[in-house]
């Protein structure tokens, strides 16, 4: 082995060590930036409400008073908000899934007049600022008596989820080979049976993804919720939290707000991280092919 080659290799290992240190530093810094706000708010949630908030991550006199308060104080009715939120999100997600799965099947497996027009219209409708629809939606909901009702809000979330869900489901169905459905149909299955008994079990991952995305979306949505819901007893978590940040007692109430943030975020973080692989691949499949 020549001296030059050995030298180059030695330089290489030293360069590599420097590079590794640099990579660890970058990752550590990024993790610190990500974690600080989260740990800070968790720390705040165990702090005494006094208006004096420290930036340290360890509360001097930890207390669970804030959690006790948001679960018992009728003015900060977190349990109620949380129940409302789960109800609205779960039903919206189930509704969207039930409506869009058969449609996505038709768009993926059948060819018919108007197919391209509808798919493109769905895509274009997503680019429209959703705000534009609010006046009309409010008027329409008022007509059928669904203002200030969870059903009205669920209808809006379900409807709004349609275009995106169809595109996501169709993309996945397209990637499932048709041969299995075809052989089922040769064995006498109807087209509908081929869809429910053959394709749907194969497409289970994307069904979870679409269900989860349509659950997470409404879970912390604020703008539509506040334009439909008025009564405090029907508030969702996002509306309740917003009312705390708008309060004149913002600084004093910060620990209480922090406690609601923590309780609101934990279920979604757990769900998201446990299904991360599926959600990320579901959302990026169209992008990276």
């Amino acid at each position, binding site marked *: 082995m020549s001296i030059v080659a050995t030298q180059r290799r030695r330089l290489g290992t030293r360069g590599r060590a420097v590079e590794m240190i640099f990579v660890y530093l970058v990752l550590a810094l990024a993790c610190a930036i990500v974690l600080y706000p989260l740990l*800070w708010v968790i720390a705040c949630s165990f702090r005494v409400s006094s208006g004096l908030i420290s930036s340290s991550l360890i509360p001097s006199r930890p207390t669970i008073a804030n959690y006790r308060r948001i679960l018992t104080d009728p003015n900060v009715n977190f349990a109620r908000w949380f129940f409302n939120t789960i109800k609205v999100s779960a039903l919206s997600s189930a509704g969207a899934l039930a409506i869009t799965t*058969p*449609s996505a099947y038709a768009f993926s497996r059948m060819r018919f007049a108007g197919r391209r027009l509808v798919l493109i219209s769905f895509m274009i409708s997503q680019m429209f600022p959703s705000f*534009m629809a609010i006046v009309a939606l409010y008027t329409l909901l008022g007509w059928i008596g669904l203002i200030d009702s969870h059903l009205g809000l669920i209808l809006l979330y379900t409807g709004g989820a349609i275009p995106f869900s169809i595109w996501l489901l169709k993309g996945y169905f397209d990637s499932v080979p048709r041969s299995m459905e075809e052989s089922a149909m040769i064995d006498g299955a109807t087209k509908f049976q081929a869809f429910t008994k053959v394709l749907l079990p194969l497409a289970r991952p994307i069904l979870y993804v679409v269900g989860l995305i349509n659950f997470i979306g409404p879970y912390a949505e604020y703008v539509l919720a506040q334009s439909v819901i008025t009564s405090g007893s029907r508030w969702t978590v996002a509306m309740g939290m917003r009312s705390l940040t708008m309060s004149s007692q913002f600084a004093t109430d910060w620990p209480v707000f922090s406690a609601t943030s923590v309780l609101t*975020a934990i279920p979604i973080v757990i769900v998201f991280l446990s299904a991360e692989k599926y959600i*990320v691949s579901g959302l990026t499949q169209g992008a990276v092919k």
Partner: protein
Amino acid sequence: MADAGSVHPVPVVAGALSALLAGTGQLYAGQRKRGIAYLATEAAFVLALFTVLRGPLRGLITLMPTGRFVDSRHILIVGILAGFVVLAYACFHVANIADAVRTASRVQAVRRPGAIVQSASTIRRQAGVLGGANLAPYLYIAPSLVSAFFIIIVPLVFGISLAFTNYNLYHCPPAGRFDWVGLANFVKLLKPGSTWRGQLDMVLAWNVTYAALGTVLAFAAGMGLALALQTHGLRFRRVFRMILMLPWAVPATVSIMVFLGLFNTSFGPINVLLRSLGHRGVPWFQDRFWARTSVLMTHVWISTPFNMSIVSAALQSIPEEVYEAARVDGASRWQVFSKMTFPLLMSVVSPIALLTLAGNFNNFGIIYLLTGGGPAVAGSKGAGATDILMTWVYNLGFQQLQWSTASALAVLVFIFVVVFSMINFRLSGVLSQLKQEE
């Protein structure tokens, strides 16, 4: 033979007949049942046009209160629904013309001397219900179509219509009523030198800056972290990745409100820390520059994990041999990155990057919840220093009840985003892929 029509029907004549009156072309070609069905549908529609649809359509044109509807918004919505019925009928009529031409040419073909004799029922069967269309796909998509029609399409058309009215504080139903004003709102917004135009330019400039900077910064951060996570021999990769994904996992509304506290000028830890270092603190939400900075910082914090995932997925799609080939050729690591990895990466992720850019253009949540568009700008008619078009539109509508101006602005935003996205789709080939599928 049961068919009484012309023995050798000419397709063009059949088409012309059906264009004048639906079904007559089919009758002329000898398809009696089909012709009568089309004719009856047309009769029913014309009847509806002069009875049920008449009031709503007139309402759509005049927006004047009628017997049943007084509120301008109700008149407009009912009018739009009636308009859709007319549109649907127009489609039916066109289909009827095409069907007449098709039927006539089929009949002509089988009756040509020497052609195999076919019964009328065979011709009918070949033509099928509604000109050979299969109804099954429409049953599958009906629930989505109906819901999307009422929850997305009608409200959007209504929203667009408002841009051509004078719906504002002084013409506000149910007490007042609004009217069509043509392009007045657009003229007001776009006329050079006007106050509105000044505001629009200011907001648009920041909006473009925000979308571009936000996208580029979050993408750069995401790419850097994705590359760092890809490093060979990295330990705790899964732990790092899980922590870095957290901003995506936490609901954005929650994160934004937490940042509201983080940046708070009196108790926020950033300023507390700065003060303990002897600095007098940063006026995060009071100063134009710092408010914009806080918005961008929050944006990058929230959006980086998404970009990181995209880049990670794209990096995995680049085959290992590419790197090895470059290494064998003696390329330095920087050369490998700048000449190979980065271009390959961009070719894969640029469609989604452009799509996020379009999305960030309307990224409402962060600015609405964090700064509310503020701080106020001296001499402005409501638009604040961090207002992007959408938050400005929202305030114009919900706070100042300037619904018509707000809607006109939203239409401008829509045109901008659609044009941008269409170019993007064309470049990325989504539309041609759809065409190929058929």
